[in-house]
């Protein structure tokens, strides 16, 4: 590739996201310090599989950052009507009603019961436990279940829907002439199926020396032979898109059914007898072995029994309903895996790109 910028190990795509001013600044920089600065202006892929702990560490970092900002920085910007507020921040703030809503849902069932008379409080406690657990199960199952499709797709096709990158935003001055206003956002390379960040996947040394190493790797996973790897990026991009759309569709559809299944399991009788008592347990955190080991064992046993009750309920109708719900969840997951992984256009080439593109590439364009 022709090095247009004079900066080593950089590709032209990385400049597409920059403002002209910043590019010029990078172009005019000559010393190493400036080079480093200019490099740090790029959006960076956060690789998940550098070490065994990377996925956990990175996820914690990203989610922690998003969560804190969702409750603090973004609402402040929003309430001020900041000119720098953007759609990412709006979407990230979506976590707030999700989490608060879950807590409120638990509270609506549990908060008043301590004021009830003893028999009613005891009765409601049984229901409350299950509801609170159901709310938690909903969130957990919704999150985990997406992996049931995403992981096989990643293993077979190499397309990691969750591949994240750190995006630097150069903000406009709010009041006067402040400069160097930079904020970080955590996006996913494939969060948009219309505009994936293809550029970040070029020339990344993690995947190999070649500029299109990532695409070569994916092409091999799609069955291209070594001699067919010329312009592999152009060949696999439509295929990746197609896989992404299907993965997103089925992981979304199945995740809500799995979430419903999780709630269904939480609503079974065995959980009525589990003593949660979170306050006391938190106070006794120093004796965590004595406190949590028996609890986890009790909880695990209740979970196993509840799963069994969910599919083998003594009531015929509940049994059929439970099995249907579970069947739908499993069925959608399997179907999602099959359709996402199977390359239906292996011989004829994918039609996805042409069909979703807004521009007909077969015709000449006029700019006016």
């Amino acid at each position, binding site marked *: 590739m022709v090095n247009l910028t004079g900066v080593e190990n950089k590709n032209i795509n990385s400049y597409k996201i920059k403002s002209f001013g910043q590019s010029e600044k990078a172009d005019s920089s000559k010393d190493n310090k400036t080079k480093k600065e200019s490099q740090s202006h790029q959006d960076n892929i956060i690789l998940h599989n550098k070490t065994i702990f990377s996925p956990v560490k990175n996820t914690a970092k990203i989610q922690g950052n998003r969560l804190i900002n969702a409750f603090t920085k*973004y*609402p402040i910007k*929003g*309430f001020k*009507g*900041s000119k720098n*507020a*953007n*759609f990412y921040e*709006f979407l990230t*703030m979506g976590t*707030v*009603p999700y*989490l608060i*809503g879950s*807590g*409120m*849902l638990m509270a*609506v069932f549990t*908060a*008043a019961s301590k*004021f*009830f*008379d003893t*028999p*009613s409080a005891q009765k409601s406690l049984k229901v409350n436990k299950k509801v609170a657990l159901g709310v938690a199960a909903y969130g957990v199952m919704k999150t985990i279940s997406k992996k049931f499709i995403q992981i096989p797709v990643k293993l077979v096709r190499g397309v990691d829907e969750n591949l994240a990158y750190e995006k630097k935003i150069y903000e406009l001055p709010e009041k006067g002439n402040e400069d160097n206003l930079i904020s970080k956002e955590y996006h996913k390379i494939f969060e*948009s*199926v*219309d505009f994936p960040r293809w550029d970040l996947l070029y020339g990344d040394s993690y995947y190999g020396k070649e500029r299109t190493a990532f695409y070569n790797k994916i092409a091999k996973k799609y069955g291209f032979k070594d001699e067919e790897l010329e312009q592999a990026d152009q060949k696999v991009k439509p295929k990746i898109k197609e896989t992404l*759309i*299907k993965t*997103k*569709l089925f992981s*979304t*559809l199945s*995740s*809500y059914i799995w*979430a*419903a299944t999780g*709630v*269904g399991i939480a*609503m079974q009788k065995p959980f009525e007898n589990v003593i949660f008592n979170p306050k006391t347990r938190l106070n006794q955190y120093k004796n965590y072995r004595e406190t949590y080991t028996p609890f986890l064992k009790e909880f695990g046993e209740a979970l196993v029994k509840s799963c069994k009750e969910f599919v083998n*309920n003594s*009531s015929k*109708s*509940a049994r*059929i*309903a439970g099995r249907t*719900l579970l069947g739908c969840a499993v069925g959608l997951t399997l179907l999602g895996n099959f*359709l996402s992984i199977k390359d*239906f256009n292996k011989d004829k080439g*994918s039609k996805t790109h042409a*069909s*979703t593109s*807004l521009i007909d590439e077969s*015709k*000449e364009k*006029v*700019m*006016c």
Partner: protein
Amino acid sequence: MGNVLNSIIINKNVNNTRAGIKKPVFTIDTTGKVKPKEDKAKLLPSRIFGSPVEYVKDLKQDVVNIGRAAKGKANDHELGRINDLAMKLGSLGLAAYLAVKNPLKMSKAMEFVGFTTFFTSMALWPKLTIQAPLKARTGVDIHQKYIDSQGRKKMLYQDPQYVLTDLYSKEDLEKIGDKLGVNKNLPDRDNFIKQRAQKTALQGNTLWMMTAGFATPLMSALMCNRLEKPVNYLIEKLNLRTSQNAFDNNGLYQGFLDKLKQRIANARFNKFISKNMNKPLNTEMVSQLSEEIAGRANSAVYKDAVAQNLSALRKAFTIDNDFVINAVKAKIPASSIEAMNSVQKEALESAIKEGSLSKIAKILAQTTAGGRRQETQKLENTILKLLKRAEATNSQATVGDFANELKSLFEISFDFTTRKNVLDRFISERVGDKSGSYIANQWDRVGNQLMKALKLKGRDLKALSEGNVDLLNDRLISLAHGSNYDSTVEKLMNLINQYEETTGEKSFIQKVQNGAKRICKEVQNNLLKIPEFAGITDVISSEAQKGTLENTINQFAQERVQGAASSFYRLIQTLDLYKRIEQGSIKQQLEELLSKQGQSIEPEKVARLIQACKDIMLKATTTDHVEKLTTTGFNLSKEEYKIVMEVLFGDKAGETIKSALNSSETGPKIMNGFMNYLNSFKENVINWKNGMTPDIQRRVLKDAPNSSNSAIRNNLVGKSIKDYVKDFAQQRSNSLKWLKIFGISMAVLTGVTLAAGLLIGRKSKIEQQAEEESKVNG
């Protein structure tokens, strides 16, 4: 791209003379070229509530999009919409599962109500508290939608960095500007309006995100709470109507599903018979067959009758009796036989012939009483084995011998069961001891009025919910005092009138009796066509015999109606008691009765019996009465029991009410009802005459004390006053506490949100500066 442009621009004529700047003129040859697509984006009408037609259209499009996405052809917008649809579908699936799992119709319905209210709240909250007030005040619809050139519906202000304010017409923009109070003299006013609109929407959307989490569950729960009664009412009406229709059709109407069910059931039973054709009609098979044939009937009487008849068939074919008798005898120790008298020996032989293990064991247990239980047990086991071997080795009846008769019996039973279920449902929806039955709802409805009649309010209810019986006692003392008494009796009387009018108890009982007679007669006639099973008819209906199926059905309905009415009359009776205590007539009567029995008249004893009378009225259940009040809490001796019953249900009972009811038009009717209640109570409970079938006695005496089976506890005397008031108070008190906590929370949240909305859309500093500048410039 540069090359393309160069090739297009064929004549560039730019006059850059210093004398004056002219616009550059480009001549473009567009022959054979394709122009960019025309901009078709437009704003949609600004509405707070969307149209249902649009909703259905969008839904249809979402379904189409799923199909496209499954082929790998969707875009971001479509995938985003699919997420919303999936969330609703998942929640609907969950509601359906929970509804199926829940046995009560009301709870089933509430699962769907919960689902609907949750999504409604999610949509309504921002509309009512943020979008509508902001639109009214500033003219900015923060949820303004537009259609882009590709026909996709989007929110105009979703992305603050990409707001297509150009889509607003000049007039609309002016309107917004006027409402926002943007200075009319500002140069570039439109731009300021757009900026303010954008800022307002951003602030509004942030407020939405920050409050939705609190508001949606709260609003949804409150809506569910408010909808509970109407939903219950609708379900009750629906149940009454459907059960009435089915009853009127005599259960003859069979829809497609009913016919299908019958066909499936017949096929299943025929398969069962074919599979077991050659199997002996032994005890185990009799049990299996009776379950198959009569299991659905929900009647122990019918099922037992079928089992007995099947056993009789088996005996007709069985067996080599001598073999069994000799074998059993050989195993019984000589000492046991020797210890028997002649009657016992005969009984043993007859039991062995019958093959009745329980009878054999009973006889042996009598003769081997004492510490020889183990020996008897051992013997029982040996005999059981012998009987089985005898059954297996000797010729006896097989299922195949009666295959056709059994199939006919199944068909008759299935038809009978279907009709009986219709009748059972007709009864249960009206007077059943279940949540949501008409009688239960009616009690709930009069509950408030009843509490008013007893002058029990907020704090009293709280104390009563915690079981404070003293408060109830004090209140009854005050209600029995002076003019309070007449007015309270009148109020209660009105409630009874109201209750009986709406329940229509007489016509209901008549209907049940006719219905029971009809289906029982029909099944009897059908059964008589199969001589082998004609014996079953005896237990279905018989004028001479009590405890028949027909009697059981009628009795249940009567008990329930009586129980509910008794609850009112019991209140009146209790007031009468308190009045008589106040007048001193109870004390006098007790002293007379004690002296008649030759007992000493100690003041403590009289006081204790007066207290016992109060306690019985307030707390005693049917079980306590059937146990002659020897149960915990009463502990009355036989003599005391007689005295107390005479005081409460004797000739003097209700004498203070007569005078209170005299002035009323409906007084005689109520008094008549009251006297019927007293007499019926005496007959059914105190004297145990008629009506108390062995079955009810067993249930009352054995099942009820150890269980919370309120059907049995309350059928005859109704719920005890203490229990009723306590349950009502608990329910009301809990409901009020819940409503107080979350109602106030919701009100505060709404207030804060509306107040915060007032701070939204203010002028920016730049705008203020521009205004000042424009003033200065004139």
